[in-house]
């Protein structure tokens, strides 16, 4: 059964070897003419000021995290809807189960809303 994957692995190996070969050969065969100005970061011809590693605002992290949480919630809804479709009895119970699930997450949503995590500025 695993034999079917051998061609895939061969392609992966070929790609990796090819890429390394190209990079390696060009590194070995080329001549480097490095000057201090050439190595400095490009700032439209201006002298470089400051560090490139700046502090990011935490709001980006918050948005990403909240997205993950509610995305997973949506993901859980999908197999539920497939099962709902197929199970013809206990439909009321299934529906209430999902509502409870959503309600629990809605409490969390209400909390972050009131705490101001959804404010961008």
């Amino acid at each position: 059964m695993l034999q079917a994957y051998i061609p895939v692995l061969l392609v992966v190996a070929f790609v990796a070897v090819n890429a390394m070969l190209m990079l390696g050969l060009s590194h070995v065969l080329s001549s480097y003419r490095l000057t201090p100005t050439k190595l400095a970061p490009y700032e439209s011809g201006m002298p470089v000021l400051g560090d490139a590693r700046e502090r990011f605002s935490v709001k980006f992290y918050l948005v990403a995290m909240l997205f993950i949480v509610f995305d997973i919630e949506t993901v859980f809804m999908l197999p539920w809807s497939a099962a709902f479709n197929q199970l013809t009895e206990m439909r009321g119970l299934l529906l209430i189960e999902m509502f409870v699930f959503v309600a629990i997450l809605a409490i969390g949503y209400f909390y972050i809303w009131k705490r101001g995590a959804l404010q961008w500025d």
Partner: protein
Amino acid sequence: MAASPSVAALQARFADAILRHEVSCGDTIVYVTPARVHEILAWLRDDAGQLFDYLTDITAVEYRDMERPLEVVWQLRSLSRKADLRLKVELDTAAPLVIDSVFDLWKGADWLEREVFDMFGVSFTGHPDLRRILMWETYSEGFPLRKDFPLRGHFSRAEQTRQALNANPEANYSLEELSIAEAYSELPADMKERLNQGERGGVK
């Protein structure tokens, strides 16, 4: 063409500070004494009958005739009354060229006065940050729009090229303009010194 009614109002209010006026191509030009120019401009901005709330331009004129003094010109506009007025002050070129800044009246005077300083060498007392704006900050050839400044500049082309190549194009930034406060440690020494001195004051 008749002079603007502001002339009569100015003469009534400031009597001897208003030296003369003329009308040229439909524009009224009023010559005033340098000592009271700030007071006059403040009155022109604030008085209910004048309301010149927009400072269009500040510039200077030097004539080829050596006998004529250097004029500093304020072009005013009243947006509500849709009226223009030009005020001029005559400065003797033999004496230091100093006049009051109107930065406290119109914030737009900031760069306008820096340009007049850069090109003519007129110092504006009370200006928060009088330094060169068109030429680079360490430009040492002089004041380009003066009549005794040759068109090609005082220095040789090689010297101008050398000074230009060695000028730091970012030497003009103050801490407020630099959003990268963490860059302080990487600044060149002369910039740090200037920022420590509060980045205020005139340039040689």
